[in-house]
């Protein structure tokens, strides 16, 4: 009874605290600019099923895809056992039952066996993940100025917790199995791994009972603590990947957004009879402060780009295929996304563990004197990074959860050009060429058709003419 009450309190506290954290994150995301992403439910559902649930884009790289699949499937299947743990914890002691799902019979056997094998595979995969990150040298995409200190530690903490949870699961099952064997009882379920481990545990019933309870409590408490660690961590992607894919763009990747307020201005310039629609007003009818063109800070970005930032697990696929980054430029698409999250949490709600990135020399940051006054642009992302982008969409294509770093880059370029006139000089020359000559180069518009002069073709009957 006492255990049940304790467990109930723990459960309520864990889910309550998690909900509170999620609400803070939701508020952070909603500071972003409005963007209508409603509609197309069927297409969005299909995309979410393929990309998020089905991990379609992970399979561009086989080794990490298979390792990740093990951990992902392990997470999904072992959580079925967590349901049982919760039911056992709440009602098992009161009504005197143990392992609530055993009524499933043969299905329960398969479920438990699958769980154990998956748990063992998860440990193997996690060790491989750890090695890829911590060997010397680590995989290239796990390096870079944005992946030092906290992000590096966060990645390892996640791996340690995952191993701890699996070990606790084995402790629980093995102790339970041995306890039943000593009592000459039959434990429902099949436990292929625990069967191998029973010899390692002492033969004392009391000790075994404690070990079983300890394994049970550590496993479930660990899961609940992990749940509440997620909002501080890159591991939050296990939840956010789903809404992020759902709300990702459905248009061709080459299509950039048109700025509507500019459309109205241009229309008014070209057609004097065009009536510019009135600027939006606050609910009480008062005028709103004019919104800048492009993005200087996180609240200038569309909310979907802020959602992106919470869905990023910092895997670095984007940066590893970025042509600018590959050739030694400062730009790293992953850094832009991580900076966006850091900045949101700096300016608005912070998570439990908040350690914004501190960059080394190699990031060439301008010195930031006042953290609270620093904006995303310049405070975290330097113009040098933004101007190195070729808009090639390699980062967008590579992201397994459909994050779009390119959109954020373009929004910040817009601010630099339209609000600060701070484009590199050569680009200003290109702009004035387009304005004056209708071409980005300094050619005379009257020469535009010269290519057609003295144009000859060899006489040859066309295929259609022959036919």
């Amino acid at each position: 009874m006492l255990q049940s009450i304790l467990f109930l309190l723990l459960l309520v506290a864990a889910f309550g605290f998690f909900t509170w954290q999620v609400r803070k994150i939701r508020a952070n995301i909603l500071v972003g600019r409005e963007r209508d992403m409603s509609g197309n439910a069927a297409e969005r559902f299909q995309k979410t099923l393929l990309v998020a649930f089905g991990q379609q884009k992970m399979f561009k790289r086989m080794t990490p895809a298979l390792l990740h699949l093990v951990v992902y499937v392990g997470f999904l299947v072992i959580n079925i056992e967590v349901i049982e743990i919760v039911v056992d914890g709440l009602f098992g002691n009161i009504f005197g039952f143990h392992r609530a799902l055993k009524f499933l019979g043969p299905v329960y056997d398969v479920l438990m066996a699958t769980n154990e094998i998956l748990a063992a595979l998860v440990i193997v995969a996690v060790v491989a993940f750890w090695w890829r990150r911590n060997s010397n040298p680590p995989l290239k995409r796990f390096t870079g100025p944005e992946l030092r200190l906290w992000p590096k530690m966060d990645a390892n903490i996640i791996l340690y917790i995952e191993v701890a949870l699996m070990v606790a699961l084995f402790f629980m099952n093995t102790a339970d199995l041995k306890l039943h064997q000593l009592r000459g009882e039959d434990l429902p379920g099949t436990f292929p791994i625990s069967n191998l481990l029973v010899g390692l545990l002492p033969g004392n019933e009391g000790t075994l009972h404690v070990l079983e309870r300890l394994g049970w409590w550590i496993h479930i408490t660990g899961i609940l603590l992990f749940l509440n660690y997620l909002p501080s961590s890159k591991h939050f992607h296990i939840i956010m990947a789903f809404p992020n894919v759902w709300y990702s763009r459905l248009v061709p990747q080459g299509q950039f957004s048109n700025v509507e307020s500019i459309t109205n201005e241009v229309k008014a310039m070209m057609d004097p009879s065009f009536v510019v629609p009135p600027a939006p007003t606050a609910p009480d009818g008062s005028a709103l402060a004019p919104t800048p063109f492009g993005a200087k800070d996180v609240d200038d970005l569309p909310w979907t780009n802020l959602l992106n930032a919470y869905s990023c697990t910092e895997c670095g696929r984007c940066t590893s295929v970025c042509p600018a980054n590959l050739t030694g430029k400062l730009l790293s698409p992953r850094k832009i996304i991580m900076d966006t999250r850091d900045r949101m949490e700096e300016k608005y709600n912070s998570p439990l563990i908040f350690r914004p990135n501190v960059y080394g020399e190699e990031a060439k940051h301008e010195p930031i004197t006042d953290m609270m006054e620093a904006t995303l642009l310049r405070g975290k992302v330097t113009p040098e990074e933004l101007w190195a982008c070729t808009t090639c969409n390699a980062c967008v294509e590579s992201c397994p959860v459909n994050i779009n770093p390119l959109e954020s880059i373009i929004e910040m370029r817009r601010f630099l050009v339209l609000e600060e006139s701070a484009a590199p000089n050569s680009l200003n020359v290109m702009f004035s060429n387009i304005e004056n000559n209708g071409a980005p180069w300094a050619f005379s518009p009257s020469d535009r058709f010269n290519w057609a002069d003295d144009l000859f073709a060899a006489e040859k009957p066309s295929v259609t003419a022959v036919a």
Partner: protein
Amino acid sequence: MTPEAPTKKQINVPVMADLAARNESPEILFWVGCAGAFDDRYKRVTRAFVRILEHVGTKYAVLGLEESCTGDPAKRAGNEFLFQMQAMQNITTLNGYGIKKIVTACPHCFNTIKNEYPALGGDYEVIHHSTYLQQLINEGKVGVTGGESFKGRRITFHDSCYLGRANNIYEAPRDVLAALDADLVEMKRSRANGLCCGAGGAQMWKEAEPGKKEINIERTEEALATLAGKAEALANLGGVETETSAPGAHDLQGSIIAVSCPFCMTMMSDGVKNKEQESKVQVFDLAELVASAEGINA
């Protein structure tokens, strides 16, 4: 380069304003683009494509002096205002002539007109010339015979970002090249994994930011290694996890890097020069290869 043509005829490229004056409308409008109109190298692509249009007897027209930059480089550089000014101006011209179908040899013009003009009032069927050439070959209107033979020559195709990842067109250019009966070899980074030439996003008009290497050099090295059959030496390039290709070395003489974009053309040509391979390796656009194979150059 092509066998001596028995006779040659002069082409008078039809201009839209003249057609409209005669109350005629073309089947397609050929959008030349600024590079196609002004860049000396890409003008040859424009002329090759016009030869093909004439050869198959398509009723086409160009805007001539009425064409203006689509605004793509301005938009990618963040100058949304200038982009929309250009877009509205072009849309006014195109709509004024009642244009329905546009073909262009520039993936940047293609992407902008196809994807970004509709929201500003410009709705057209837009086709990139690689798709158009593929259709001509499939329909048998172009036989890719009678001219230069590409049989057995090693060709690698460099994907343009604005054709590939931006608009998911990967097969059309490859189908066109396959019709040449050449020895097609793929770079490790191809199709959706293709590496940018380095010129997109308005990089064409500015110096690159400080770094270790120019992007076009990185890409040209990959193309040359692939053509030489030594691509496995570059397996670690870019951190892309790939398997090694079959070993074997080929003489680069006569090899071709095929492109489908004016900016890729510039970047890859510069790269080949930088690597001092221009006497062996040539960079050609799809339209040039088709016109050569068809024997309609003069």
